[in-house]
């Protein structure tokens, strides 16, 4: 009796799983064809062909080229530096922005949220060119500061520099950084903040002990969502980075599109992918330490 029942259960589960697989088959198929397929091709290319060594078979030379060339290492450091700084700037801006949206703005909450989302709809190229007009030698910021007499000569470092890339990237990813944090703050019962007030906390204690731990899941999502794409960014560094803001994304683009060296370009892409994976893993571990499960 028991055995039969169990067998039936097993069969039931089997049937359910089969049906689930059936439902999932088409999206998984689409992903395999459109996403994993090209990546597999690139993976093969990265181990196979190099325009410099002219070998046809299996080779690690593409990877060794990327990992040993000092100029690539410098570019890698620039990439990590710019991505990390932009991430930091974004968190510094996104956390207060999300806080004000949720707890302080009242009726303005939805309009400003909408503006934030709309700002991302602007063509990225147009946005970057707008920043060039703001940051350039003759740009609005420099001419404004000069006319005020704050500075004597325009600041050249504003454009075609790491700073320029950090500013532009931070500004363009801000909606992606803000919305996950906004969502996690939105889930906080406002009476928790009143309770913290009531029990004697000033704003710093309230922020550190209540808001930050409760927003941790959102911050984790933000880091995953923003930090990883930053590593492969190429449009902003190409347009406002100059030579010092040159990032790995630009190197890949140059290898593939300008030099036609698919092997090195693919190898670089895969190294970037591994790096992103490591970042995601670290973020995931940190997120779990923050007791994600205890909150939700």
């Amino acid at each position: 009796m028991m055995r039969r029942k169990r067998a039936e259960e097993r069969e039931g589960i089997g049937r359910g799983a089969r049906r689930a697989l059936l439902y999932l088959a088409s999206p998984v198929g689409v992903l395999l064809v459109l996403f994993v397929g090209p990546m597999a091709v690139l993976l093969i290319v990265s181990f196979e062909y190099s325009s410099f060594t002219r070998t046809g078979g299996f080779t690690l030379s593409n990877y060794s080229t990327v990992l040993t060339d000092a100029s690539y290492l410098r570019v890698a450091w620039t990439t990590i530096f710019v991505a990390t700084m932009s991430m930091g700037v974004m968190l510094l801006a996104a956390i207060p922005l999300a806080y004000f949206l949720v707890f302080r703005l009242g009726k303005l909450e939805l309009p400003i949220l909408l503006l934030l989302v709309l700002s991302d709809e602007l063509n990225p190229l147009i946005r970057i060119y707008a920043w060039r007009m703001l940051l350039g030698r003759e740009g609005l910021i420099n001419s404004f500061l000069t006319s005020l007499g704050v500075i004597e000569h325009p600041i050249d470092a504003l454009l075609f520099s790491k700073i320029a890339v950090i500013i532009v990237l931070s500004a363009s990813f801000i909606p992606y950084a803000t919305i996950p944090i906004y969502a996690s703050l939105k889930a906080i019962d406002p009476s928790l903040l009143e309770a913290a007030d009531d029990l004697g906390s000033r704003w710093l204690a309230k922020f550190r002990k209540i808001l930050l731990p409760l927003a941790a899941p959102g911050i984790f999502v933000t880091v995953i969502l923003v930090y990883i794409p930053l590593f492969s960014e190429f449009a902003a560094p190409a347009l406002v980075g100059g030579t010092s803001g040159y990032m790995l994304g630009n190197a890949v683009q140059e290898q593939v599109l300008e030099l036609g060296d698919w092997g090195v370009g693919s190898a670089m892409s895969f190294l970037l992918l591994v790096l992103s994976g490591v970042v995601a893993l670290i973020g995931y571990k940190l997120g779990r330490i923050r007791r994600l499960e205890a909150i939700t």
Partner: protein
Amino acid sequence: MEGGGTMSEGPVVRVVEVTKRFGDITAVDRVTFDVGRSEFFSLLGPSGCGKTTTLRMLAGFERPTEGSILLEGEDAAGVPPYRRNTNMVFQNYALFPHLTVAQNIAFGPERKRLSRKEVQERVSVALETIRLTELSARYPKELSGGQQQRVALARALANRPAVLLLDEPLGALDLKLREEMQFELKRIQREVGISFVYVTHDQGEAMTMSDRIAVMHAGRVEHLGTPEEIYLQPASLFVAGFIGKAGLLPCTVEDVTPTRLTVGLPDGGRAEASRGPHEYRPGLEAVLVVRPEHLSLSLEPPGAGSSSLAVRVVDEVFLGAAIRYLVEGPDGVQLWVLTAYEARLPAGSPGRSAWVRWDPARAYVLPVERGSAPGEGEAPEAANGRLSTLSSGDA
């Protein structure tokens, strides 16, 4: 402000002529009361009566539009919540979900920068008070509603406030647990000796626990007194209708003596009643307030000269230890009568004529203030209907 139990004489809380307006709406209207040391003080009223706003002004979450609040003799105007020697138990408990029970309770003492040892001590004392020591490592979501409620109480008490503010703390619990917690709250209050200001819409809760009650209605305090005073001599029709199922008979004062009043009843009969704390003169429009348990019902006409009224029995409800009758007098006035099981009417009495009688010492004459809405609190059914719609919670 720390540990201010013995710092000053006089009331712990003084609320003087406090008004709070939100735009055009007057939520609290010239409210005045004191809360004494170790007193259990309740703000009782239907939702929207201003009781929660009053409590939030004590906590510092809202600022009075007019009037002043004194905490331990000091003006609290401009003192932010985190610097007030008050602590609040929130309606939804507001426990920090990412902290354990012990960490939740330690939150307040830690903010006061007490030594680690002192914090530990306060946490264990608070846990003992609420009898939940064994659950100190749990997270709030792992606790039942009643346990969460007690942790919220412990967290507020661990700060050793001069006044504990409670905003409908039992509202979310089921009836049985609520009754248990009433005794528990009263025990804890006696044990810690801290003044409690307790907001509720549940008159039973307020009556059970309070030393004094302020009954609020439309932003004003309608009656401030002990549960007994409020029950036996309600200051207004609203209070009479809100507290229990008072029988309210329209009447006219006919004769006034230093001890007794004679009133004319709607059926033309006359009755005697005791004096309340009001001015009386012949011709005064009033209502006779009699509690259901002070009325007796019989099918025989009473003897001449006794205080009685001819009625028709409308309905009977078996309550176990007692029977409740709904009777209708002249002009459709309805009264509840609570009768011991032994003194019940013969079966089949609904629909029959009967007489209600009362002891004049138990009947109280409340003058009808001019301009009060006609019919307000008149019939028990009307009052009941209002109570049931009002008891659905105060935001």
